[in-house]
């Protein structure tokens, strides 16, 4: 599997810590952020391919964070994570450009598979952008 850079955003510190560690164990570059604002600040310093973003967070919520992220880094793919799951918020997230809307708890194996697919999409889009630019 190709290496890519992942950002995990969730207000539950323990969740972020565990998942970041397990992704690193698998050879991915992973960072965590505990709030939407922290994530946005991190995006100013570092590039990521895929972001896993919790829907419900105190302060700036997942949807608002997603909105800002897509403005800052339109090519970064975002997977929304949700605990309670509402169809309306799923539609909203996808409409704002999220790649997927995943119910918690998601087994790491499944989440990782979604991250790979999201990364594949990013590669296809970059490729397309390059060929467009070359024409």
């Amino acid at each position, binding site marked *: 599997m190709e290496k890519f850079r992942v950002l995990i955003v969730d207000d539950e510190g323990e969740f972020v810590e565990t998942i970041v560690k397990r992704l690193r164990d698998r050879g991915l570059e992973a960072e965590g952020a505990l709030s939407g604002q922290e994530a946005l600040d991190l995006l100013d310093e570092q590039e990521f391919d895929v972001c896993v973003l919790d829907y419900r967070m105190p302060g700036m919520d997942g949807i608002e964070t997603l909105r800002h992220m897509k403005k800052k880094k339109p090519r970064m793919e975002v997977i929304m994570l949700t605990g309670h799951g509402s169809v309306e918020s799923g539609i909203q997230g996808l409409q704002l*450009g999220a790649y997927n809307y995943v119910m918690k708890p998601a087994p790491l194996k499944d989440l990782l598979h979604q991250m790979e697919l999201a990364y594949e999409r990013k590669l*296809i889009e970059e490729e397309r952008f390059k060929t467009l630019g070359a024409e």
Partner: protein
Amino acid sequence: MSSFLKKVNLSGVEPYLMTALIFACAIPLLFAGRYLLSGGAVALGAISLFHTRRILASMGRIAEQRIMSGIAEERLITDDRACRSQIFSSVDTLSAGIAHEINNPLGIIAQEIQWIGHLTESPSMRGIKEAEDLRDSLREISRQVDRCKETVHKLLSLARQVEPVLQFVDVNELIRSMVIVAERQAAAKKITIVRRLESGLPVVASDPPLLRQVLLNLLLNATQAIDQEGVITVSTRSLGGEFVEIKVQDNGCGIPREHLARIFTPFFSTKPEGKGTGLGLAISRGIIERLGGSIDVSSEPGESTTFTIRVPVNSRRVNATLARG
């Protein structure tokens, strides 16, 4: 066809567009007098916001009525693809224009709301009884601004013709994960979601996030169509290896015959204000057609409604796209 186009004359919409623009520009001006900070100004702001939304909605309805009457006169069936794409392009131009003109003022309003909120926290405002009322009022304005933002966003996604990104999709798997999202809300109304997913379905080359969006829209409509207790059935099957068919069926209120031709039209909604913008199916149809598929509806009023989607398997197209990997 060309005489049809002449009849579908959108020019009558312009005065409304102008009114909307004037309102949109007037709101930030209202807020600009921030030293005039008073409940009155805030209320005025809220009222103009309310009007902007009203006007947007009625513009949509007028455009739709004109289109519909044009269609009736020419006795054209809405199912005529060519005709529909022309309708869509005029609605597209209209919505892209409105969206652009409304978005910027909305951004400014949101900033000013934050600023006023900040002012109400200042020491000189402390202990003033009305300050809390003012903050309540600001929160309501914020909510309405969010609602406008969302409608504008939906309009934009209707207008924007982004080229889909094709990836291999296990349709059954994608459906399962979206049904899980819908299940909790359905269960709250005692609705069961039954899956009848054919095994051995061909892997299709399609755009996963777009497909998810369509499925959630259909599942949401189905859930809303059932008052209490009911069944939604989601099924898949292969059509000769070339297409995959997805059906979402519910035993809810059904769709009256006279509405059937209109449900895919932007802004057609029978749901109460604030519940539906009438863009869900318009967006869904736009997506499915961009993916090279089709979406159809059949309904037995009072009995059931079935939406049928067909997406092409596209096996050759994806190989070309993914060959680089």
